[in-house]
């Protein structure tokens, strides 16, 4: 059994993704020089030892013969019934005692956070763990999530073969006043650093809710172009009692004001720039500020997909009367005309999608491609829209899951913009044909000419 400590002053000179997974490997490296939430990482070898010693392989293989949903539930059960060895429990107890509670237990798969696959949200994370038994259960849940339907499909789609072991990252939970995501370089402009931030946890940014945007043009002259959202009147916070993330209204005094000071935006920009320079490739970073204005680096990973090329395509000359949406939130350039599939709404609480039609059937009917109109793309939706050739996400900007998935898939992407149609997602119907054209600077969605 191997356990690595995330502890200030603990060196990590090299790399060992096979043991610590992509996320764990990156955190160990960042922990050397940045303020990273403290904790420890359980190696992927520990998972393999547990599976082998408990003779779970055959049971798992057998369970996987069942339907995907049943299989995951059965495998969860198999893991929960199996017992960790006495040595492992003793070692975990020592590490567990040294961490401030509550803690987060997260997956770190061998292919996760690599330079080609983001694995965003494909495995489970368990938040707010405070007692040791709950911690052991959380580790088993993370192990079982390796066999969740969406994780298996993700690996199959990306032809990944190493998905048969998983490391586990255990960290103190930061209670952030402000958090966000920073990109270096900005996906929109290679000369800038892009920061998106909001009050509380940055889950709301990943889901595409309103946030502040800072374009750091120059860290030396401190040239920052800020776009402060007047709509960020909600914040995600972790409820230690309910042990889940809740959305709360922010106090009136915070509405409409910048979530980051200029000094903080510069500190974040310099941090992500250091990381980009060290890794020698475009990187993104999740960060948080606690109540004492300490900056925490929560995660850093290579920006997946291709950084946009310098050639800017020209948008078609469409009359204003046929333009449905115009937006500056662009990621992948291109023009596509074809049928549309509309997801009208996403209900996170009840895990339901409000789709105009049968999503699985539409994905099959339009296997040659379609334009996906959706508020956002949570991981649960991603697997059912595999044939999309272009995407417009009404709630996402250039960051968040929708944009990350579009970049990873290499499909045309347009994020939230100004619509000429009131309630666009309730008006456009699945099956009708429309067009999307996206350049580096701007994109449009338009009705096709009847002729």
């Amino acid at each position, binding site marked *: 059994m191997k356990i690595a*400590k995330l*502890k*200030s*002053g603990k*060196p*990590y*000179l*090299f*790399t060992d993704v096979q043991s610590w997974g992509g996320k764990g490997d990156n955190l160990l*490296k*960042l922990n*050397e*020089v*940045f303020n990273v939430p403290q904790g420890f990482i359980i190696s992927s070898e520990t998972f*393999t030892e547990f*599976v082998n010693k408990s003779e779970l*392989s055959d049971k*798992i*293989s057998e369970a*996987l013969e069942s*339907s*995907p*949903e049943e*299989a995951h539930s059965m495998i969860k059960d198999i893991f929960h019934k199996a017992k960790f060895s006495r040595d492992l429990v003793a070692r975990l107890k020592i590490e567990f005692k040294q961490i401030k509670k509550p803690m987060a237990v997260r997956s770190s798969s061998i292919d996760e956070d690599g*330079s080609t696959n983001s694995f965003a949200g494909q495995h489970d994370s368990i938040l707010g763990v405070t007692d040791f038994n709950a911690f052991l259960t959380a580790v088993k849940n993370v192990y079982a999530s390796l*066999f969740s*339907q969406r994780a*298996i*499909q993700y690996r*199959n789609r990306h032809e990944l*073969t190493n*998905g*048969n*072991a998983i490391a586990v990252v255990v960290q103190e939970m930061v209670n952030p006043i402000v958090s966000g995501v920073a990109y270096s370089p900005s996906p929109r402009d290679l000369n800038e650093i892009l920061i998106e931030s909001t009050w509380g946890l940055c889950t709301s940014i990943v889901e595409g809710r309103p946030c502040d945007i800072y374009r750091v043009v120059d860290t030396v002259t401190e040239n920052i172009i800020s776009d402060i959202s007047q709509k960020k009147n909600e914040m995600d916070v972790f409820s230690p009692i309910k042990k889940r993330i809740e959305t709360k209204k922010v106090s009136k005094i915070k509405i409409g004001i910048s979530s980051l000071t200029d000094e903080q935006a510069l500190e974040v920009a310099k941090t992500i720039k*250091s990381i980009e320079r*060290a890794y*020698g490739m475009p990187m993104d970073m999740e960060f948080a500020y606690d109540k004492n204005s300490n900056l925490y680096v929560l995660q850093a990973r290579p920006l997946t997909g291709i950084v946009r090329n310098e050639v800017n395509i020209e*948008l078609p000359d469409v009359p*204003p009367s046929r333009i449905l949406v115009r937006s500056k939130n662009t990621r992948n350039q291109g023009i596509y005309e074809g049928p549309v599939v509309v997801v009208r709404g996403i209900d996170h609480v009840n*895990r*339901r*999608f*409000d*789709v*105009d039609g*049968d*999503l*699985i059937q539409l994905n099959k009917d339009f296997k040659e491609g379609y334009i996906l109109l959706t508020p956002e793309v949570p991981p*649960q939706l991603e697997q059912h829209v595999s044939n999309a050739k272009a995407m417009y996400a009404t709630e996402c900007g250039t960051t968040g899951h929708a944009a990350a998935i579009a970049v990873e898939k290499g499909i045309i992407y347009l994020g939230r913009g100004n619509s*000429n*149609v009131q309630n666009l997602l309730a*008006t*456009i*119907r*699945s*099956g*009708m*044909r429309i067009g999307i054209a996206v350049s580096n600077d701007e994109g449009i969605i338009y*009705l096709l000419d*009847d002729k």
Partner: protein
Amino acid sequence: MTNLDDMMYNNSLIIDRINSNYNNKSYKKIDYDLSNMTNSYSSLSKTYTPIQQRTYTPIQQRAINWGSDTLVSSEPRAYIEPSQADVEKVLEAIHMVEKLPTDVQRQLIEATREIRYFIDGQIRARFGATYHFNAIRCLNDPQTTEVNRLLSLRNVQLAGEEFFALNRFMINFPDIADVQWWALYQNGSWHLDTWNPDGEHLDTGVNGWGNLLGSVLKVNGKVLEPKEVIAFYRTILLRNERGFRTNSPLNRLQTILRLVDSGTLPRGLDEQLEELGDLSLVDSSGKVLTYAGKSMITPVKAIERRRRQETETDEEVKRIIHPIIFN
């Protein structure tokens, strides 16, 4: 392009078009139906790809050594010119750039160059330009070491250099004692600067470094894979720019190490001992200095390092310090 503000708001016209285009699909709300999805998965068993053995084509060409015409010393002072068998061992250990994925190639070329530049710069800054023998020694004479015939190539040179006892003075690297650096460059002009009686050092002539064909690095005795070389380079960049977050500065670590070494460490310094353990400067008992720990407090010069290469009897230490041992 029309500005958004100037655009006509034409909702009713658009809705008319939508209605006329739409082929009467009924709007319905559905639960997620996963039953149609097929399942496939990989088994739990791991597969490993065996490491490919390197092969070298037979001797075909004569070696050509490039660079300065200055005569090199016929009597090496701080290095031992490797035998042909040793050279073959080095070549076997070297990771050839052309065999690596394209993105790794670019990074390895940069990392191999920049790691040497960085450490060399730190040493010269600490000791002064001509006092390199306090932490650098050559591992061979690139103009003498024959590799072209073994590789069936022209104008290739093998350059080896050792940076030793670095954690005596590199403040952000208390955990790094030695770095041994071997590289194969083509069309460069590597040669020895031999004027200093305390030890030779590597330099390049008018053709510079040349093109990297391959390299191998040992850090504290660990032979690095290409991805580890790149990760090590990232460590150097990050630590150099942001500082390594140790709790104690280098000189305090050295003071505590001396106390441990002399058996005079007072009680109540558990945190400091734990820190030394985290940095692998003391063993698990906390009473014995590791190789890296001793290195941190022991002055040493290039000529002494050469002597130790020949005389070291502790197999574990020999594995760390000997530049031709790669396992």
